[in-house]
């Protein structure tokens, strides 16, 4: 009974998702809402404005550098959290290791 209910819910969700996907704009059509001034500015001006040939690199480290800074902060927070969890097992050896290396 539970399995049948779960299957029915999954099929219902699948139909909903398929209906949503069928409403999406066609792939790479010029009339898509994503093809706006932002797109034209990035693709047309990146060589003059930034001086790079890799447009993606120009976007993530120049136009949207703040976003990349956030990514670096996420990396930092992640490693800090992992070290905080793992090191508590091993605080004594960690202190010894730190004393030895520096």
């Amino acid at each position: 009974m539970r399995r049948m209910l779960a299957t029915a819910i999954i099929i219902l969700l699948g139909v909903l998702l398929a209906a949503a996907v069928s409403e999406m704009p066609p792939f790479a059509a010029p009339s898509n809402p994503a093809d706006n001034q932002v797109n034209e500015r990035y693709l047309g001006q990146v060589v003059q404005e930034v001086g790079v040939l890799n447009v993606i690199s120009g976007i993530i480290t120049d136009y949207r550098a703040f976003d990349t800074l956030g990514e670096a902060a996420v990396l930092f927070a992640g490693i800090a959290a992992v070290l905080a969890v793992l090191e508590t097992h091993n605080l004594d050896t960690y202190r010894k290791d730190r004393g030895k290396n520096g």
Partner: protein
Amino acid sequence: MDDVVLQTVTLMLLPFIQTYGIYIMVNGHLTPGGGFAGGAVLGISLILYALTFHVDEAAKVYPRRKAEALESLGALVFIFIGLLGVLGGAAFLTNNTSFLSGQAGTLLGGGFILPVTVAVGLKVASTVVTLFFHLLEEEKR
């Protein structure tokens, strides 16, 4: 894993892997790749070393203090470069293309992009390696 063949082949491959990682990182603004991809390749070379030899050997090559320093240095260099934009009279993280203003399409053509990419790459490499070493050491216990 004290396999002589594996260790010899690893030692032969390591310089090429690291050169390729640095290449991806430094050419991030010209060819596909960039800080994240290059840093991952650079980190993978140290992970390979730790797997073929031992994590203790690898920790001698890349000690924890160095990992911590590089980890923080990457983010700090990024923020410092961003502040250079403020010093130039523009918004935070503004790219100053008169700095390193080579021909567009050459290595020095992207303003602040090259140092930013290298900083991000070092940070990613350090993160990958530190995570992996810690998980290996956790397993050992």
